[in-house]
């Protein structure tokens, strides 16, 4: 049996670190999963592997670099291809901006019934709007003369909703029914940055409530999974932290936050989470 998991994420959403750490764990046999064949092309993660091994933050993949990457994973008796149709993430931005999907994306969407969406909550911008503040008369007077510097940028939350709408359209989703075949795993990445005790569901709800509402009203509960991920574990910005990586090895670090809030060190469980 063959399955395919589609990994979706904007630029700088930690795809590189996750895939690097994931690969290292498989290689060092620190996972119940294994590769069912050798990876054709490791070059998309090679510089990140080197950086992590020497305790450095990996350079982020240039967003415009259009490289596809996939990992052939053996999960019990199932062969699973983890596909990342485009690595930098620029194409993900372009899907919404230019309103189209490349053939590579369309094929991946059609072949995969298990989608993983990476969202780095800490980079979500929520600027102050009128509903956030209590207003004085002074504000009101200012308001009348103010000319908006019209940003030509869609807000993060609307972006993710539109992205999913476009992907669902390509999948042929019928809004009359809820998704009952397609599994969605929303992964909040760089969890360590957030410094929170919330469960993943709560974190998503407090930062992106309309996106959550959209997802929950289009996916049957059993097919929706919301988890947290810190692929690196902590920032590599102190000598102490760098040494941990240099001495113990990068594969010793990183963790997943399961829906119940419990952390597990085995980040490769993300694949099982996405398949279930």
């Amino acid at each position, binding site marked *: 049996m063959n399955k395919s998991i589609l990994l979706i994420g904007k630029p700088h959403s930690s795809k590189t670190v996750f895939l690097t750490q994931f690969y290292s764990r498989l290689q060092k046999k620190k996972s119940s999963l294994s590769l069912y064949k050798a990876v054709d092309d490791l070059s998309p993660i090679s510089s990140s592997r080197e950086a992590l091994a020497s305790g450095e933050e990996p350079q982020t993949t240039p967003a415009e670099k259009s490289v596809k990457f996939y990992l052939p994973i053996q999960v019990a008796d199932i062969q699973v291809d983890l596909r990342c149709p485009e690595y930098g993430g620029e194409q993900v931005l372009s899907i919404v901006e230019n*309103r189209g999907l490349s053939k590579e994306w369309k094929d991946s969407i059609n072949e995969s019934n298990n989608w993983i969406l990476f969202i780095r909550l800490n980079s979500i911008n929520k600027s102050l709007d009128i*509903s956030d503040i209590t207003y004085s008369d002074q*504000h009101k007077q200012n308001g009348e003369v103010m000319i908006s510097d019209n940003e030509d940028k869609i*807000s993060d939350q609307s972006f993710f909703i539109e992205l999913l709408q476009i992907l669902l359209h390509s999948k042929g989703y019928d809004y*009359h029914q809820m998704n009952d075949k397609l599994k969605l795993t929303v992964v909040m990445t760089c969890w360590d940055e957030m410094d929170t005790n919330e469960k993943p569901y709560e974190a998503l709800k*407090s930062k992106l409530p309309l996106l959550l509402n959209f997802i929950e009203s289009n996916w049957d509960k059993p097919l929706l999974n919301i988890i947290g991920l810190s692929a690196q574990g902590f920032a590599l910005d102190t000598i102490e932290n760098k040494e941990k990586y240099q001495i113990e090895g990068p594969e010793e670090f990183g963790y997943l936050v399961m829906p119940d809030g419990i952390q597990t060190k085995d980040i490769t469980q993300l694949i099982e989470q996405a398949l279930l």
Partner: protein
Amino acid sequence: MVGKCSNLECAAPINCHEGNDKHTECEFWINSNADQAKIKTLKKGNKSELPWTGEALSIEELGKVTYRNSPIIIGVVGKADAGKTTFLAMLYTLLLRGGKLKDFDFCGTKTIKAWDDLYHKLKVQKESVAFPEPTPAQYIRLLHLALRNNYKGLKDVFLSDASGEVFSIWSQNRGDENAENARWIYSNSSAFILFIDCEDLIKRKNLAKTEIIDLAQMLKHDLKDKPVIAVWSKSDKKQEVHIQIRQKLQEELTEIFDDYVEVDISNFSADDPDILVHTNNIKVIDIILSKVFSVNRSVIVLENKNTGKDIFLNYKSIK
């Protein structure tokens, strides 16, 4: 509206070379400007294969959504500067910050760019807020919300965004050639939100009140059993409206509409959360939808015959 006729000699929008009363009805004008719209979406040479653009829909484009469902169109009615577009902006802003409709979940929208643009207008920049610009007179557009009810059923809801001027014209003469948009909204909506501008009542007193009553009476003339709710906008100042004007207006509206309901809304919070701002802007939609769905009402069903322009209307009863 900016545009050009395809006939280079034609003076439209001043005058139509074909002798049409309105240049916008001339086929040469329509063709020429449809092309322009097309070019705009062909940015970077990629023709999008998606059947929606994320922008607000025109009447002709409604079929892009209505093929799948009988839509509920909500007519947002009121004079210029009464806060109609700002209400729409506030609605989406509140949804983005976690506000929820009582009986429905948000399951999508075909007009997310238009919603998001409205939201951007309410962002605080340099301690100030820009607010949406006045909706241009010729303009009529529809903003879409796909909602899922408690039984997981899909409901497509459209909110109209048209210039207030056309409603003022229509309230005086419903056959006026410049009131076409108001007539369309009137005959196609399943329910109406009537805007009462508190600021205008403070400034122009009885004059403002008379205009509201004129509009209310025009709404009433062929209303059948479609619900109307009155929304007192800029209600943070409602207490400054002279009590006599306030009471009389209320009385008269209660006489005009069966089952009269009103909601006070504002954009300016005095508290956090503020009922007028955070609760009531969403409550307007809650109430109107509960009225639309509460009884067997006739709603208008747009039957789409696949081509955008070929929509014809008929009545159908829904549960």
